[in-house]
């Protein structure tokens, strides 16, 4: 399969080797870490999964291609509607879990920190400070957090920063229901 990144109605802000992407259709912002950003940038409708795996191997200095890592990234990208609908087929992507991908990454000696992370950012509002707890900004939430009671869809991690104290915030598990 040949995945292709969605570009329309997306606003992109580069932050070093990460990306902040604002989806104008869904009014949601996402932060892609280095691995996720690399894959997304290079999903051009011509590169295959094997091509992307080779690219990741080179960019991240992995000892071997990690196709499972690419599949996991594509799964996350599709979950956040960052891939063209006509590109990757859901059945192609759904097969790999995060655990499997991380196992493969460990097996080839890659750092777990290189795993793709896509976080939805709920942009801070002026009165959010009142509800912020002094929790650390880093994730206690993990990807694919609890299933929503209504639809059974897995949720995803979002971070709510405090606008008056930007280095505190709290993590929320956002429902995967649509």
């Amino acid at each position: 399969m040949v995945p292709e990144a969605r570009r329309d109605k997306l606003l992109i802000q580069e932050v070093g080797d990460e990306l902040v992407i604002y989806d104008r259709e869904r009014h949601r912002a996402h932060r892609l870490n280095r691995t996720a950003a690399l894959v997304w940038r290079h999903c051009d409708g011509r590169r295959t999964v094997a091509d992307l795996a080779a690219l990741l191997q080179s960019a991240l200095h992995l000892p071997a291609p990690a196709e499972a890592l690419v599949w996991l990234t594509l799964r996350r990208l599709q979950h956040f509607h960052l891939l063209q609908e006509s590109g990757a087929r859901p059945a192609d992507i759904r097969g790999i879990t995060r655990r499997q991908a991380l196992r493969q990454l460990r097996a080839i000696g890659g750092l777990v920190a290189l795993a793709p992370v896509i976080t939805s950012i709920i942009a801070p509002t002026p009165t959010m400070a009142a509800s912020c707890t002094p929790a650390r900004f880093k994730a206690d939430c993990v990807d694919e957090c609890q299933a929503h009671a209504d639809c059974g869809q897995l949720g995803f991690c979002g971070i709510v920063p405090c606008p008056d104290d930007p280095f505190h915030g709290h993590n929320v598990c956002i429902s995967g229901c649509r």
Partner: protein
Amino acid sequence: MAVGARPEAELLLCCARTQVDSKIAERFEILLHEEIDWTYLIRIAGAHGMLPLVYWNLNAACPDAIATANLAQLRDHFCANAARNLFLADELLHLLDLLAANAIPALPFKGLVLAAAAYGNLALREFWDLDVLVSERDFLRAKDLFLVEGYRFLTPLTATQVTNWSRTQNAFSLVRGDDEVHVDLHCRITPRYLRHSLDLAYLKERLETVSLLGATVPSLPPEDLLVVLCIHGGKHAWTRLDWICGVAELIRRHPCMDWGKVFDQADRLHGRRMLALGLLLASNLLELSLPQEVMNRVQADFKAQTLAKRVRARLFQETDSQSAPEVVAAFLLRLQTLERLQDRMRYALHVLATPILATPSARDAAFFRLPPRLSYLYYLIRPIRLMRQYGLSLLRHLRT
């Protein structure tokens, strides 16, 4: 740079720009080898709206000199701020489309447009609201459109208060959702205590355009924008470094600024001293280079130089801005930026009386509650309350 500043304050001043030359990069290296109190640095950077530029510049110049945890925190904030700014930009374009569809000419200014015009990158500034200017004729109609769109008044107003507000104030402050978006809908840019206005009727022949998220939106020409920034900064007693940074970045990005037009506009608004103060601060604190003839003109204003010294001395003081001494100091500074006696009197009257026409402040009501049919007596209550609250601080200032 500020004399006697802590290294954190000096580091912040070095970060207050979008382009870092070799001299500033060297200062980074030196300062980061000193004992930097990161908690203090982040606190003052946050207070001055400078966190995005602190991350942007330190990450580019010397990421290895910063503890990983600190850099990660700065990056997290940068991403969250970038996301919010993209969201606000999208909403601004939506509102401009809404107004255009209803044949209401509109001009976005400050905030996002300044970030586009002066910084070239929306992620490098922090702002919490959108500013849109419409004509006085369209003011109430535009307000109604925004209310239908889901916005509400930040402070609830009755129908009578809305009418009074539209006659006495510059802008409606509106908010949508649970504080999701703040919009200030203006009928004029300059305060009402300045006799001449910058309103859309005057500006429409002078407008230029700027690119915002790929869309072309109207914008003030840089010469007028510079004067607006200096008036805005003066109105707020230049308490935030990002306002000074905005002045410096606008000038740096427009090396062919027509200074004749700048001074003409400042003269028209009787804002020559406000302009001089803004330029002096940008020059002294951020090492902005100005043409010699411009420097000669601003340095000839000794009052502006005195005011610039006062602003510099207070910039990094951590004081309660709502305390009586601080309120009085800010009021006096704003008063002294006005060159003409009649403007000072209008400003004092504006502070004392005009808010009552719209709605008595919560503090006036808390001081002495009057039934609605006697609300006109707040004209007397308010000055008494203000003298009681601030009179002593005012006397102390006048004695020094």
